[in-house]
């Protein structure tokens, strides 16, 4: 089952002819992802690794009726590409690009919500359903099919956690990288709910960071009993210096809730296992399994 992504999900790559787009298209094809089209304006009619390229999302959608699109495009052009994808009727939009202006992301998010589109990212590694399909850049070789759902705000740290689970023989249902930007598409609570519904997922791992309030919202959801599956969390930044506050307004709105300590405290209070070092997660899952 897994969530968000299965072996029938048809994917378009926006920016397929670029350096990153082309490279990771090959990687996704190698992982058996159904890449049905690429889009680069002005390069319609070409092919990249056998995938047909179109000038616009509209044409690509008319020809392929794809479900998802993944954006590998420089930050200044992401806004136009994302709105194009949403208007063309895509149902899942994954933005890998780093450095997208916050206002652009907020507007993309609003538009996606209006049109019922699931947005993941920006500045994220994408998602992978081990052994089935992947959208984005999570290395396939570190994953293993299994029953642990992973949701993470980090990119590379996600890989770390996945690898550690895999090395410990623990497989994953789906791994979702939410992205590290302050405004982003899916957040912890959204993905936690999906994992709760997913029969394949038995355990849920959250990888968080300092800043923002996504972890606290997740803690509230879990504390309220909405998530019945066991949840394990690792929060990076325990030793990080406090971030710069954005004026008094930032302090008033965000309060003191952004530290790793605070996040770990509220998650523990909600019944979440919180790890001191990454490997503690694998140990805790094993302990749970042996119970």
């Amino acid at each position, binding site marked *: 089952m897994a969530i968000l992504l299965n072996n029938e999900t048809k994917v378009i790559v926006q920016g397929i002819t670029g350096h*990153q787009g082309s*490279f*990771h298209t090959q*990687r996704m094809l190698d992982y058996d992802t159904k890449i049905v089209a690429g889009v680069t304006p002005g390069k319609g009619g070409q092919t990249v690794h056998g995938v047909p390229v179109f000038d616009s999302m509209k044409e690509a959608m008319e020809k392929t009726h794809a479900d998802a699109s993944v954006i590998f495009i420089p*930050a*200044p052009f992401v806004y136009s590409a994302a709105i194009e994808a949403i208007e063309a009727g895509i149902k899942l939009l994954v933005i890998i690009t*780093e450095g*997208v*202006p*916050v*206002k*652009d*992301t*907020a*507007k993309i*998010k*609003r538009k996606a919500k209006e049109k019922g589109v699931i947005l993941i990212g920006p*500045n994220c*590694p994408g998602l992978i359903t081990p052994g089935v399909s992947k959208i984005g*850049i*999570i*290395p396939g070789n*570190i994953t293993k099919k299994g029953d642990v759902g992973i949701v*993470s705000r*980090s*990119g*590379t*740290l*996600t*890989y*770390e956690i996945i*690898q550690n689970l895999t090395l410990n023989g623990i497989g994953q249902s789906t791994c979702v990288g939410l992205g*590290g930007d*302050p*405004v982003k598409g899916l957040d912890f609570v959204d993905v936690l709910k999906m994992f709760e519904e997913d029969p394949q997922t038995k355990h849920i791992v959250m*990888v968080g*960071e*300092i800043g*923002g*309030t996504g972890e606290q919202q997740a803690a509230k959801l879990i504390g309220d009993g909405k998530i019945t599956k066991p949840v394990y969390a*690792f929060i*990076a*930044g*325990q*030793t*990080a*210096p406090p971030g*710069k506050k*954005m*004026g*008094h*307004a*930032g*302090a*008033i*709105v965000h309060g003191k809730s952004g530290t790793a300590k605070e996040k770990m405290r509220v998650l523990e209070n909600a019944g979440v296992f919180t790890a*001191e*070092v*990454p*490997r503690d997660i694998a140990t805790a899952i094993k302990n749970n399994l042996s119970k």
Partner: protein
Amino acid sequence: MSMLYEFEGKNLFKEHNIPVPKSKLYNGKQSIVDFAKEIGKNEMMVKAQALAGGRGKAGLIKKVTVNTAEEHIKSILGRIHHGKPIEIVMLEEPVKIKKEYYLAAMLDTNSGQYLVLASSRGGVDIEEIAEKYPNEIYRLALPITVEPLPFMFIDLGKKLGFTAKKLTQFAQILTNMLTMAINLDLMLVEINPLIETIDGHIIAADSKVVPDGNALFRQPNLASLKSQRDQYSELEYEAAQAGISYVQLDGEIGIIACGAGLSMATCDLLKYYGSSPANFLDVGGGADQKKVSKALEILSEQPIKGIFINVFGGITRCDEVAEGIIDATKRLNIKIPMVIRLIGTNDKKGIEILEKNGFHAYGEMEPAAKKIVELVKGGN
């Protein structure tokens, strides 16, 4: 994403029709005399320009007379405030205060909307007010696609107690603040205090403006401001120019990692094993050979006891990282212990390159972290 100097923010205010007191940058004794003549007053505010708050409490904002201004300014120029010397001083016309307000427009990252915060209890202790009297901070959320218009802010202005012409002035000022935030891709426009003068005008006595660093590519006028250079130390700037995020800490091991989460987790892990990070260089997603080589060059100039390179490649390719390490170690004379952990996209190719050049690469983070701590502690 760092704030602007007060004077830079106020220049933007003027362009957006947000009233500010008359002001001039200090530029030798003559500028004081000229400014006194311009405002027709014998007294003026001297305001040190800094990229950190708490200027008032630090004595960096003071009312002086024309005769004492020069001496006072010389006493604050070069003074260290939050780690940086004061280099710029602004002269400003004193305003006669009837009442102080607080007003901010921010892009609220929690909601992805614009958020206005306002209070009729403005002044330095607004955060304290917010804690003690949360009901006296008014909040107004606006969609990210909002087109700000004065009528939207009449209600808020009335709550703050503005009447008559001051009500429309307030509504226009807030409209202009939001328009400015939208047009210039700002994360925050904050005025504290917003002053009602005894002659019935509303005027921004301070400015705190924070641009979105991600949007500077399309805001050339902001990108070229002095504050956007001054926010960095020499090292941070050198790193930033190469696309590397440099964070100074106070431990003993220098770290190169890619991705903020992994960088922070690496710091946490060194502490866990009994050492501590001296700094970290996050070479980011998509790091290439040049970035990695440059990061090592920056580290090699630091007084550190060991180097820990921790790369898990996603969009970053391990072979490029390996090439960067080889390039740097050939150019530089690195004598302190170095431990490399390299895995992810193209890792086989990367490890091969490293091994060909006599380096070992760990596949897992924890043993690698343990190793560098051992090497550093053993070398003590």
